[in-house]
């Protein structure tokens, strides 16, 4: 019997719990930590079940290589040699930028750091990215431009201090349950105000003072109109604007173009709701803005983020407890994967690859010369390049783009076009089925490291059991690959040593070492060993000095419903599953709860289509067609359908549109045109 304190591998909330192993070294339970500031003895359903998948018989336990079209087990040494040689050979023939590395927000900070070090120092390319491209690239771009830092400004505990919370594009009780429940209790027990802007009737909307069901993709018009009313009625925070911000006049001019009636027509909501929201939010002493994928996953995702930041600054809702612009990060370590530089344009701590001084620093530390100076390919651009035959080699760690990336047909073509594809994962996936070499990784329960949660809290992940089968921790695999590629400066005895290197090279992590990471972790920025960490950003000045108002204008989504494809399809997650389902669909109760792909259809549309609840239907778009079970529900408004993307046998991303935000290249998962018919 052994209990190991560790961090949940699902969403970015960062709950800690104990993994309980029996005397045979098998996980048998999860017990919540009563002392952890976020968990407080509580967890969501995924957290309580986060032990079971670890021993599932589907686990990859031996390396395998494709021979005669089938994956066959080989010894580690052979598999590692093949991966290193395969990538090196392509690099030699076509140049280092003909290969790319997909890192993973599911793996640790140390592993993400090593992946980017492997790409940059061993293979000399900046083509390294991970799934933040698909979720919060808009946030990192938008908030960094306006505030100087692209992270959640406040802490999770602040949700209990807000006087008015505006939740936009976040189904918080389902996707960040231990944050959503705080927002809920703040309303029910403290009487705080709540505004929900979401086309779907989510749980929080049942408690909202205002639920604005704006049409998907019209957030800029709506937020500009709210700001229009605030300015018209003199409710803006003049002192904050004068003392802390710049470029206000430009914002004022832009907002003037959006009287509520105009936005109401664009968003298909009553104008008086816009006026009411403006008054409610602006009059609160502590206004808090919370958003997630409903804001970011658009071709105008960066504009959406900027609108949120404009609104928060307009009412002075930044830099104090109970306020802030709070993008909720969707994966356990998507914040950390960004922080440690698994991005094509920055090293760890958002230090730019284009800055010669930064490159010189990393060259010295890593013992190399001539690190690449050009910004690398984003994940979405790399997939396009592969489809065009320009990118020829790819190493993927812990990601499943076949289900998670937009337009599955396009992804398949891209991955099948590669000369060499290697995948490191814990389970076989739709992506690993296309790989030339598959390396079995140890799960979160079998290794040490750190995750960084949505509130910038760096927390320990601890080894509870030995790696299952012959699997190995990703950090060891990456170091082995570096050595075989001829790069000898990636040798570590433990992840602790990797974190020491990160701290030495990364100002925002400068004070973070394992001996300081007690049960509550540390929130960055934490620049030195005496620094206690930072709960609220921008409290006296913005990271960039003054907050920059950044006026933006409404642009319609890339593909809107028409006669042929009359529905607006939005995609996302459901509560019971996580992303491509590799872990939750191998957890008994979670799998049982939501077993089939489904599509939410409004009762009005179901009547028109003559389909019943529970009936199999086909959903099609210009990219593809899948089968799903119809869920007839007033969760969605007429004309809107919603599908989760967890199901390989009914992949929502066979339908989605690979249209990208021009600034950050995030795909438009939340809007495309679709058709629904009863399945034959």
């Amino acid at each position, binding site marked *: *019997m*052994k*209990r190991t*304190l560790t961090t949940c591998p699902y969403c970015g909330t960062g709950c*800690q719990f*104990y993994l*309980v192993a*029996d005397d045979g070294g098998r*996980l*048998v*339970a*999860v*017990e*919540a*930590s*009563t*002392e*952890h500031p976020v968990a407080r*003895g*509580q*967890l*969501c*359903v995924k957290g*309580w079940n986060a*032990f*079971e998948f670890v021993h*599932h*018989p589907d686990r990859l336990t031996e390396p395998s290589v494709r021979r005669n079209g089938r994956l066959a087990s080989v010894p580690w040494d052979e598999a590692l040699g093949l991966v290193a040689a395969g990538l090196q050979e392509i690099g030699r023939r076509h140049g280092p930028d003909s290969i790319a590395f997909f890192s993973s927000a599911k793996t640790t900070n140390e592993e993400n750091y090593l992946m980017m070090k492997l790409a940059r120092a061993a293979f000399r390319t900046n083509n390294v990215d991970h799934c933040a491209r698909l979720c919060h690239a808009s946030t990192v771009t938008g908030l960094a431009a306006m505030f100087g830092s692209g992270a959640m400004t406040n802490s999770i505990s602040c949700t209990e201090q807000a006087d008015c919370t505006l939740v936009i594009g976040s189904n918080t*009780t*389902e996707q960040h*349950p*231990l944050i*959503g*429940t705080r927002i*809920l*209790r703040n309303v*029910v*027990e403290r009487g705080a105000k709540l505004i929900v802007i979401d086309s779907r009737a989510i*749980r929080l909307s*049942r*408690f909202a003072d205002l639920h604005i069901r704006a049409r998907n993709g019209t957030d800029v018009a709506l937020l500009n109109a709210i700001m229009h009313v605030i300015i018209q009625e003199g409710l803006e925070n003049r002192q904050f604007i004068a003392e802390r911000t710049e470029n206000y006049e430009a914002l004022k001019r832009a907002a003037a173009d959006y009287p509520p009636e105009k936005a109401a027509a664009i968003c298909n909501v009553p104008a008086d709701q816009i006026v009411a929201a403006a008054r409610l939010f602006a009059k609160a002493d502590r206004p808090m803005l919370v958003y997630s994928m409903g804001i970011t996953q658009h071709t105008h995702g960066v504009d959406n983020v900027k609108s949120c930041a404009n609104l928060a600054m307009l009412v002075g809702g930044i830099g104090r407890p109970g306020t802030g612009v709070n993008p909720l990060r969707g994966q356990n370590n998507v914040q950390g994967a960004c922080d440690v530089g698994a991005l094509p344009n920055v090293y760890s701590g958002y230090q730019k690859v284009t800055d010669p001084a930064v490159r010189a620093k990393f060259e010295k530390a890593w013992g190399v010369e001539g690190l690449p100076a050009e910004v690398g390919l984003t994940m979405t651009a790399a997939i396009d390049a592969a489809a065009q035959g320009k990118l020829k080699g790819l190493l993927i760690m812990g990601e499943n783009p076949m289900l998670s990336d937009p337009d599955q047909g396009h992804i398949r073509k891209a991955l099948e076009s590669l000369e060499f594809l290697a995948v490191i994962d814990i389970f076989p996936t739709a992506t690993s089925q296309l790989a030339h070499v598959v390396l079995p990784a140890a799960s979160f329960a079998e290794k040490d490291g750190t995750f960084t949660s949505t509130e910038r809290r760096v927390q320990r992940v601890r080894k509870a059991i030995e790696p299952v089968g012959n699997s190995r921790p990703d950090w060891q695999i990456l170091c082995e690959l570096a050595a075989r590629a001829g790069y000898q400066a990636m040798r570590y005895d433990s992840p602790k040593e990797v974190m020491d290197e990160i701290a030495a090279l990364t100002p925002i992590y400068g004070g973070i070492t394992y001996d300081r990471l*007690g*049960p*509550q972790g540390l929130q960055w920025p934490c620049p030195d060993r005496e620094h206690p960490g930072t709960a609220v950003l921008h409290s006296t000045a913005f990271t960039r000095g003054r907050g920059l108002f950044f006026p933006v204008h409404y642009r319609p989504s890339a593909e809107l419903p028409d006669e042929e494809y009359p529905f607006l399809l939005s995609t996302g997650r459901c*509560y019971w599953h996580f992303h491509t389902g590799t872990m939750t669909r191998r957890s*008994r*109760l979670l799998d*049982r*709860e939501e077993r089939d792909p489904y599509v939410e259809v409004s009762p009005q549309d179901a009547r028109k289509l003559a389909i019943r609840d*529970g009936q199999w239907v086909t959903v099609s778009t210009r990219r593809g067609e899948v089968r799903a079970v119809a869920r007839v529900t007033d969760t969605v408004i007429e004309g809107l359908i919603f599908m989760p993307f967890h199901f390989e046998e009914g992949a929502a991303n066979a339908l989605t549109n690979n249209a990208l935000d021009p600034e950050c290249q995030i795909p438009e998962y939340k809007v495309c045109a679709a058709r629904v018919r009863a399945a034959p």
Partner: protein
Amino acid sequence: MKAVTVAQLQDFFRAVAVEFDVRVPIALEDGTRALGRLAEGPLALSGGALPGKPLSVFFPQFETELTYRDDSVEVQEARGKPLLVVGLTAQDADCLEFIDRFFAERFRDDVYFSKRAGAVVAVVSGRCGRDGEFLKIAGGKCDFELACDGARFLVVPYSEAGRRLCEAIPGGTEASPQELEGLRRQSDALDGSFADAVRRASQLIRDEKVPEAFWQEIADRCIGCTACNLACPTCTCFDVYDWKCARCVERQRIWDSCQLAGFMREASGHNPLGTQAARVRRRIHHKLAADLQRWGSITCFLCGRCDRVCPTGIGMEAVSREIVRRFA
């Protein structure tokens, strides 16, 4: 009757580990308390009810019932030393008495009794709750009781196995029956409003005074985390399923939850508990009304765990008090 110190008890638990697999309240690295072996962390007798389902020692969250391999079946059977479980509260002892009945009646659950049989159970009570709170005296329903007077623990045996163990605790001082009686009086004077709320809510439910709309309100606040069931010592539902490996089949069982749609969903898709309102109503009805008919008592024994683990504040105490406030 003898009275012993925590240090003496700790020594005793270490010594008796030769004979028993000893599980006691321990403090884990961040201060979270759990029922574990002393090798896992220091003894933490004080602090009140342990956060997790304490009867998980007999009925764990996940276990393999049997393995089918090479044409033979291996069934989980009693193995190793019997359990000595210390640290239940008086309320937990009531729960244990109930689930012993539950798992024995009609279909006897061999997997449960493979661990329960031969186990010795001790309650911790008296002045050793969270922040000095007084814990109810059990007065029975366990093999022995450790009743804290604020400094020492009075050792009170109830069963033969308990008596044998209590006599083996070395050292200590003599305590008078009056001291125990004093603790009992304090126990009797404890606030009974939670118990009262549960009794009254039970009556209101059985009198059909609680409207459907109320359960929808509670359901609106339920995120389906299932923690109420996972923490509840009298929740006994589990699901059984098979894992097919390359050369074997393992039959697993895992704690289930009536708060899940899949709990009662039929293969046809029909679901007698098809709405969340029906499911939250069932959780309360089952303990306060249905079990009363089936087993002769309300089966919420007031341990308070569901209220502590619920992220939205709709545990049994909160809901019972709300029912009484609104419908009495």
